[in-house]
């Protein structure tokens, strides 16, 4: 049952991408900013979780929550310090700043602790379940459950709550929203808080699943999550999740047929193809940008 094992491999890889992509796509959906520092908030989340488990001796769930809360705060600080004053600036200025913030986080981290990788302690019970000759790790199931739960929660927040309504209003037209009495600053902060806490959660889950964390670990998953978000239609929450799964499965297929060295290349080929063939992504609405 080789193909079943490979499918499971692909889904478990894809669910990590999906988890990161959720935060990515949400921030883009609300304020149209590609937050390249998102992958680095993911890295910070992994390290916060690591310290919570090893130094403060927390269990997995408390560590996950700690990382989510601290990452939410970090996300708000990043937005207030780096992005807020650029809200009316050109898109390219905001994008460049985002890349700058990303490098700043990475190298500040290296400055304080060096680039040496760290090994995550074993926090989750590890049982392997055998289905038709394929092995599923209990952690894989956990990641899957967490990702789907967070996606549903996010959909609920955006579509059913007051803050979600405010987010959608700001996304549609920030000036009009302001006129209607919506506090745009707070709404955007809330967006960053939620998006960054998702990145933090992804960091802790990644760490306990893949064991190795280091200050530059956010770069590649960050880019892959971006591809996943574009693939699913950037701004669309279910799209990000489906995009993540598709990307994970495609990468696994590429590796499985013996082209493991081309795996990252395959991801970027997908990005290019999507941008050429269907720029709005699978779930995106094809709306022309206002100029």
């Amino acid at each position, binding site marked *: 049952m080789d193909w079943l094992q490979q499918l499971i*491999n*692909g889904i478990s890889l894809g669910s990590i991408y999906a988890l990161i992509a959720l935060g990515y796509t949400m921030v883009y959906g609300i304020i149209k900013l590609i937050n390249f520092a998102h992958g680095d908030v993911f890295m910070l989340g992994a390290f916060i979780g690591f310290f919570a488990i090893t130094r403060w001796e927390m269990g997995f769930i408390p560590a996950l929550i700690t990382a989510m809360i601290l990452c939410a705060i970090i996300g708000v600080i990043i937005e207030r310090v780096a992005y807020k004053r650029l809200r009316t600036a050109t898109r390219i200025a905001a994008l460049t700043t985002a890349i700058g913030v990303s490098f700043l986080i990475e190298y500040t981290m290296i400055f304080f602790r060096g680039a040496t990788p760290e090994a995550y302690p074993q926090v989750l019970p590890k049982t392997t379940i055998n289905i038709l000759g394929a092995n599923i790790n209990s952690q894989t199931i956990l990641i899957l459950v967490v990702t789907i739960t967070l996606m549903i929660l996010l959909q609920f927040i955006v579509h059913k709550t007051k803050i979600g309504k405010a987010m959608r209003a700001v996304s549609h037209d920030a000036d009009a929203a302001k006129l209607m009495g919506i506090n745009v600053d707070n709404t955007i902060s809330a967006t960053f808080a939620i998006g960054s806490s998702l990145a933090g959660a992804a960091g802790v889950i990644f760490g306990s699943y893949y064991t*190795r964390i280091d200050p530059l670990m956010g770069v590649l998953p960050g880019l892959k999550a971006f591809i996943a978000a574009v693939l699913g239609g950037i701004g669309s929450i279910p799209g990000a999740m489906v995009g993540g799964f598709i990307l994970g499965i495609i990468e696994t297929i*590429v590796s*499985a*047929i*013996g082209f*493991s060295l081309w795996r990252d290349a395959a991801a970027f080929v997908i990005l290019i193809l999507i941008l050429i063939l269907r720029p709005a992504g699978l779930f995106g609405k094809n709306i022309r940008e206002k100029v």
Partner: protein
Amino acid sequence: MEETKKLKKYASLFLASSLVVGALAGCSGGSDGGDDSSSGDSGSSGGDSDVIKIGANLELTGSVASYGSSIKQGAELAIEEINANGGINGKQIKLVPVDNKSENAEAVSAAQRLVSQEKVDVMIGPATSGNVLATVQIANQNKIPMVTASGTAPNVTENEDGSINEYVFRTCFIDPFQGIIAANFATEELGVKNVAIFADNSSDYAKGLAAAFKEQIEANGGKVVAEAAYVADDTDFKASLTTLKSKNPEFIFIPGYYEEVGLIVKQARELGIDVPLMGADGWDSPKLVELAGAENLNNSFIINHYSSEDPDQKIQDFVKAFNDKYGESPNAFHALGYDTVYFIKDAIERAGSLDGEKIKDALAATKEISLVSGTFSVDEKHNAVKSATILEYVDGQQKFKTKIEP
């Protein structure tokens, strides 16, 4: 008229003398403190101070920091011992460590700094073959002997065209040798026939090992049933491992570095691959056990330069001295760093000079020197000829399995 002529004469004299002084100062520049330009003899390259400077271009941070820092600790212990015993020919040794951040480009600038600013007499080269290769030209051009403790790729000392990098030496064995040992161990000790290779395709080290392993396995009548590759910094290996598993190998050879290997071993065991796994000295790091998990490493083997459990007296003395200084048991990189300094010391003593060319000749003529990682001689290709040790992981501990002579 006469006055101006005189003035001109003085001026030119002054100019000339200031040039000479400047040149002298330039030579000894960098060797800070103590010895001012007063060391008078003109020709020799300014190394005639009371200290012997050994530059260490090492991976102190970055992806393979564990190797570089271990070599540095080993070298520091050796230098402390030598200095306490009166130094080399009455001169004390000073180590000048520079961090190359585990990157080729940084290794080049570190080597340049050691040669031109620090004016070192000898260099301890980077830990990994790729980084050593980047700096080989600098050693050759400046005639500064460079000894790498763990750069195992063959082309570190021997170029493609068969010429030898005259100023480059090593205290470890070379990759093909490790690949051959692994193949022999698999077919003779473990008695397996169908093997698989999962190699790091981004390092010369792993590619060299994989090629030698494959050749030797076929020579021994075995068969490589599956081959796959990965690149450094990958974290998910399950797809390739699943494909390897479907070919039913009895043994998997995984040449690579501990950072990825740790994850590979873990994921392989999770996928239910329980055949023996084997690697070489790139696996040797305490981090490997943390990353892979102790129980997942059971039934895996590594080739190494030495074992701290070897009952040999010289090794036990070293283990004790190391333990007293650092409070931990030395790994192979500690031992190689330590040996590298003694190898250099032996050569400088025989050369009786700090001239790069003379030290180089003495290093090349080393015969049967007894070091912690074995008795070794330098062959005509500047490689160390010495024994290899096979270790088995048992519950996260390296257990001495057997020693294989070349």
